[in-house]
């Protein structure tokens, strides 16, 4: 794996937060080598490898700063969700393409009025003959304009029916070419187009689009979030910058600098151990909501500390584009850092989950 990454053309420029950078051809090359959907059954295009082997591949991609988002969501959560809750037809049709790196997913959870309070979503699937009509707006949908499918979380059933916050919600696999589905770009602060607003206007999806049980979407989405929060990408997004700073410091004997490097390394090693231990729990079928929240909270703190510490370690000025790898990676990290404690559940939401897990309410 390390050898492959050293020689792959996409690796000329390692990136901070590479796992959120889309490169379809790179994902296909990984798929061809069996490194996507590695632990899925062979009949669905998987490799029947262990969850641990998959984790090693994931970590190597992160350590290299590889552009891996074209298959990341499929590999991390959409695939496992279909294996767990999906229909046989969904699995047979989608998983082999996902494992080949040819079929990308985006996540339709957040809305203009529903961010942290995910249970308040108002996008609705109304039952009609042979399927569902979708209406509503999703926001911040990363890579909606590049992905083939969306994993949609929304209310289901007729509006006005009595429903609690956590009932009457469902998940759907939505083809991004569905008529009535419109994608508008939302440019971010560096001018990139990754986010989107996705609107549904009487968009028809067939019955077969429903994932799992109608109305059981809350339970499903919670198990999806455990997958979304517990991976190594929750503490390794800035790793390539740390490595570049170590390169710049090689040969230094300054005790202050050595200590800062030592401290970050002790955090990295500890988080890696935590993430392996969560992977073991997940494999054993345990619920890891609390553990995943702990890991993601600590991990985002490390990811955000790295650029701060690097500023103390190396006399460098962050740049958005530069021949100097350290200046460029520092620039990327500084501009991306605010998102690390927002996406996938904000720091405050995670701490609320942890507090509840501790018995505080």
């Amino acid at each position, binding site marked *: 794996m390390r050898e492959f990454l050293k020689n792959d053309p996409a690796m000329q420029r390692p990136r901070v937060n590479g796992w959120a950078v889309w490169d379809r051809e790179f994902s296909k090359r990984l798929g061809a080598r069996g490194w996507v959907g590695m632990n899925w059954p062979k009949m669905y295009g998987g490799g029947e490898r262990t969850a641990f082997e998959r984790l090693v591949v994931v970590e190597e991609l992160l350590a290299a700063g590889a552009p891996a988002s074209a298959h990341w969501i499929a590999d991390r959560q959409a695939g496992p969700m279909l294996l767990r809750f999906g229909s046989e037809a969904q699995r047979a049709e989608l998983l082999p393409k996902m494992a080949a790196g040819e079929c990308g997913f985006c996540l339709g959870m957040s809305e203009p009025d529903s961010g942290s309070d995910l249970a308040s979503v108002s996008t609705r699937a109304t039952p009609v003959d042979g399927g569902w009509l979708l209406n509503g707006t999703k926001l911040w949908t990363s890579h909606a304009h590049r992905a083939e499918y969306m994993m949609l979380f929304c209310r289901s059933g007729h509006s006005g029916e009595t429903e609690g916050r956590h009932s009457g919600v469902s998940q759907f696999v939505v083809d991004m070419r569905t008529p009535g589905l419109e994608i508008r770009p939302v440019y971010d602060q560096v001018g990139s187009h990754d986010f989107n607003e996705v609107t549904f206007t009487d968009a028809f999806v067939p019955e077969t689009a429903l994932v799992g049980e109608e109305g059981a979407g809350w339970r499903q989405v919670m198990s999806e979030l455990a997958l979304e929060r517990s991976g190594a990408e929750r503490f390794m997004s800035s790793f390539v910058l740390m490595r570049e700073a170590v390169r710049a410091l090689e040969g230094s004997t300054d005790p202050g600098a050595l200590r800062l490097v*030592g401290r970050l390394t002790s955090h990295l090693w500890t988080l890696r151990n935590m993430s392996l231990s969560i992977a073991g729990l997940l494999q054993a079928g345990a619920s890891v909501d609390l553990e995943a929240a702990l890991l993601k909270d*600590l991990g985002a703190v490390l990811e955000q500390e790295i650029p701060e510490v690097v500023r103390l370690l190396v006399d460098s000025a962050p740049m958005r584009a530069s021949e100097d790898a350290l200046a460029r990676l520092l620039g990327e990290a500084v501009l991306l850092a605010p998102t690390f404690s927002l996406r996938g559940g904000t720091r405050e939401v995670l701490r609320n989950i942890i507090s509840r897990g501790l018995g505080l309410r």
Partner: protein
Amino acid sequence: MSNELNILTDQLEGFFQDRVTHQTLMNAEANGASTELWEECEAMGVIHPSLPQSLGGAELGVASERIVLERAARAALPLPLAETMLAGWLLARSGYTPPSGPLSVAGLTRGANLELRDGRLFGIAPRTHWARGASAIVVVVGSQLVLTSSKAASITEGVNLAGEPCDDLTYDGATPSWSGAIDLDPTAMMARGAAMRASQMAGAMSRVMELSLGYVNQRVQFGQPIGRFQAVQHPLAVAASHAAAARMAAIAAYDQLERLVDDAESFVFCAAMAKARASEAAGITAATAHQVHGAIGVTAEYHLHPFTKRLQDWRGDYGSEAWWQQYIGERVLRRGADELWPSITELTA
């Protein structure tokens, strides 16, 4: 975990909770270690849990040592358990059966300066834990171990932050009762102690978290338990995540203990990371616990300070944060940037 270990863990929890009360701790601060309590621990078989039976141990595997230390620290057991285990392990490693009774280790602390001249011991060993009551002291002189009685040194009594004996020793030509070589350098011996302290800190932090959670759920201000305030909840959530990280780090260091056989440097690196990480967590957890307790938390009669004082003391033992962080940083820079990730992955179980 083996069944034997599970049973031991449960027994220990009950035993320590029962036998180490606030009063026990206050008595120990005033009068030193209790012989009676020590004998009860001996009867439980927890003094040398991982040593082979032929050397007087319980032969329960290396994990048992970590578990005993963690459980004892959850009760702030005021006895030299870690020191005795370390001394016993060092002696066993150089082929000598540890003597019975509480032991101490000298010569691994900051400022130690010892030498053997014609088989006699000279020099100073500052901050030696539990020295005055030890039945024997293992003195580390480079890669030589020397066994002396506590009477062989002139002792200037001192205490650590938690009021436990922590004495300065001066040797002026003492004759050892035994001496022998050990195939480890002093840094590796320190790392062995560092892994122990990391486990003890994890135990004390778990207790400090329980005390804090219990308190905020019961203390009422502004008409409700203070644990309902998000401003109280979130620091506790942060402290809990640090406590979890510390425990993980201690476990991960013990997972690598076997490397001491033929790759001591790798074990030292892991113990260094565990000690540095746990020490940082200890500071955050202790501070948060005091903050949510308000003034009652710093009173003599409230059962929080035995734990937070030990945490703050242990941070400086067997290598401070500054010491180990520097050690880790040196190794990372020496191996170079491209070895950073591989050296992390090769040292996780």
